[in-house]
């Protein structure tokens, strides 16, 4: 089974890191194959940022995502730019605080997660919005195991912030569980 995921937003939201965490979780902890690629604007902060992950049980030849199975849009601009690429019946996850303008007709599953809002209200750190998104994404889609995700988060985030980030993942997972029910 091969899943193509695109996470997009703006620089500074941890979009690239989110992809790296997913890839690492798949390869190092779930022993799957994964490839992560990225692109971003010339500015270090604030420009468009995109991280793409292909996860598969078999060798991955083509490393790029053309039509993602899952699109996580962390900004309106990202949604506008990439929603057309999403596979029919794919999954679209948006940060409901930042993405208000949604397409009127669609055949994909749409999930609106208030990740940024929860991040700043409950954690006092908007930067953990990406972790909430990852927790949600993984509980919803199981592209990697939750255990692998947590291990990967611990290894990838700055020292001293592990617990906060894990909590944010957990928070996202809870939202996901509610949705699934």
């Amino acid at each position: 089974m091969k899943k193509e995921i695109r996470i997009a937003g703006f620089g500074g939201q941890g979009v690239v890191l989110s992809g790296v965490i997913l890839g690492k979780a798949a390869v190092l902890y779930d022993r799957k194959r994964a490839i992560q690629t990225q692109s971003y604007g010339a500015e270090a902060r604030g420009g468009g940022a995109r991280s793409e992950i292909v996860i598969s049980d078999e060798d991955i030849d083509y490393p790029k995502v053309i039509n993602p199975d899952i699109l996580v849009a962390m900004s309106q601009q990202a949604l506008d730019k990439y929603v057309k690429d999403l596979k029919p019946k794919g999954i679209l996850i948006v940060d409901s605080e930042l993405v208000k303008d949604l397409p009127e007709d669609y055949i994909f599953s749409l999930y609106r997660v208030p990740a940024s809002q929860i991040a700043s209200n409950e954690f006092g750190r908007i930067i953990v919005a990406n972790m909430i998104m990852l927790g949600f994404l993984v509980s919803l889609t199981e592209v990697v195991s939750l255990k692998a995700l947590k291990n990967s988060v611990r290894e990838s985030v700055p020292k001293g912030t592990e617990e906060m980030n894990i909590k944010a993942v957990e928070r996202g997972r809870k939202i996901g569980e509610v949705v699934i029910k």
Partner: protein
Amino acid sequence: MSNKVLTGLHFMQGDIACAEGAIAAGCRFFAGYPITPATEIAERMAKRLPEVGGTYAQMEDELGSMAAIIGASWTGTRAMTATSGPGISLMLENIGYAIATETPCVVVNVQRGAPSTGSATLSFQGDILQARRGSHGEYETIALAPSSSQEMFDLTIKAFNLAEKFRTPVFLLADAFIGHMREEVLIPDKSKINIVKRKLPPCKMSLNEYKSSLDENVAPMPIFGHGFKSHVTGSTHNSYGKRDVTNYEALDYEVKLLSKKISKHKREIISVDSEIKDSNVVLISYGTTYRAVREARKMLKRDNINVGSFRLITLWPFPEEEIEDLAKKVKKIIVLENNLGQIVTYIKAAVKGEAEVIFLPPQVLGTLHKPDYIVDKVKEVI
């Protein structure tokens, strides 16, 4: 915890895998200058080299970086630099110097959109011919094209081994895509990594006794600090290293021997990856382009169309005999490059009319060929 030896499974960026390959190959000197998309190699080397007793030097420019690694190599140290197009252009004079003085070193070119400043973060295969003929004069080079993070590791080691064995700079022609992409890299135990060391002269001897500094079978390298009293010069020199710049015979002798050193050992240097079977159509690719070819072949197989694949791992010296053999076995050759046609001219020459050669760049330069685009093309020509 000691960071000296890195082994096991990693989820690693191509650039980082390249740096780790260099460390594993025994590289202990890196000189560079920041440039996207090669900067991560420098950053990794800056962190790793002091941990293993090596030295990282951030030079004032790429001219200086290339110069510094040549200087380091002459002390017997394995040395590398990494850059992208604009930096390579600045390094080319000293790359020529390394060729003329038979200095082992590795030059990594993480290619980006070009000409000129071009596009720093976009991938491209625009510097293929530059690696062959970029510096002035007549010479042979060695260039390898990795197509995965794992190969960024493996081929960096291979590049060092070839450089050390043949006393010449070796190019690793990566691109922005492979440099920045993360995927799994398995780093074997140190004992499993094959390291070739350069040949040194047997004992302390004067250069006058040392009669084979130009040798088509690669002369031992009289490195500095051992009393060899080496005279190293990029100017035309004879087999004693004596500068002789007004003599056609000396020029003829030096240029021919330096070239022969590579061409004579082509069979040993060249590595290709060929899967032909009974197919009449074969896709020739290298570097990242090969990834698209693999996907396309898988898709074609589902439609019961069997096409072959021929990948150049060694771009230079050019595997003309291998291509010539290939041409006799197939009817059509589709050459995929992420440029407007560089290696394809060499392929056409090697094919000698034995098969039809079709050139296929991506629809949009810089992007990876889309697999269904390749599939459509194959179905069209079949």
